[in-house]
């Protein structure tokens, strides 16, 4: 029951992220020259991915340690 609800929520989140207008909504990213847009995009990727990598990295380290 709980598992199927979680799957539905996950599917809804994944589906929403595929709507282009919502996924790329950013008031400042796509204005100005392409270099500026590239910087915005790059920093967005870094700031989004870094905490995930850090948390999963720490989790992986602890998992390996207690194997």
């Amino acid at each position, binding site marked *: 029951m709980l598992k199927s609800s979680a799957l539905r929520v996950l599917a809804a989140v994944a589906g929403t992220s595929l709507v282009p207008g919502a996924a790329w909504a950013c008031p400042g990213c796509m204005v*100005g020259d392409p*270099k*500026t847009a590239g*910087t*915005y995009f*790059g*920093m967005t990727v*870094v*700031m989004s991915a*870094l*905490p995930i990598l*850090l*948390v999963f990295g*720490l989790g992986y380290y*602890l998992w390996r*340690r*207690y194997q």
Partner: protein
Amino acid sequence: MDSRIAASAPRRGGNRLPNSVLAMIIFVVAEIMFFAGLISAHTIARATVLGGVWPPVGQPRLPVAHTAFNTAILLLSGALLYLANRRARDSYAKALPFLAGAIATGVAFVLLQGVEWVALLREGLTMTSSAHGAFFYLIVGAHAVHAVVAIAVLTAIYFPMRNGSLEPSTFSAVQIFWYFVVLVWPIIYLRVYL
């Protein structure tokens, strides 16, 4: 329980990560995000500056060569602490000179950075002179505060190490913090100075 059984049973939690080390790792993860936020803001400001000229016209250039030398000193400090850790596996007495060297080179880094700041202030680079100055003092200043705190902690563990009363887990936690201070600096150097 029979004492013989208790003695032969595997020690529970024998391979556990010490609390101080785990806490320091979590703290360093938060610190990485703090510096990532600062560097990200600096990168965006640099990319969106009017005219595309960075540093802005009329603002002093940062001393790239002088700071490269400082960077080498800080990396040497990290290497000395690593050697102190290796020697500490034999005895704390063998590790002490390396720990002292790590503290001395760390102090030298902070002092040389201070000299650089004084020169830049005289040239007119201040927190309010431009976004360039504001970001420079914010990012490099935040790192300097971390370096000073880390040096104080390294100095605080010197004396327990000399007495042989230092907990290995405390030494490990302090090392993690100093390695963070050392390794985040080249990234700051590459993003802010070059």
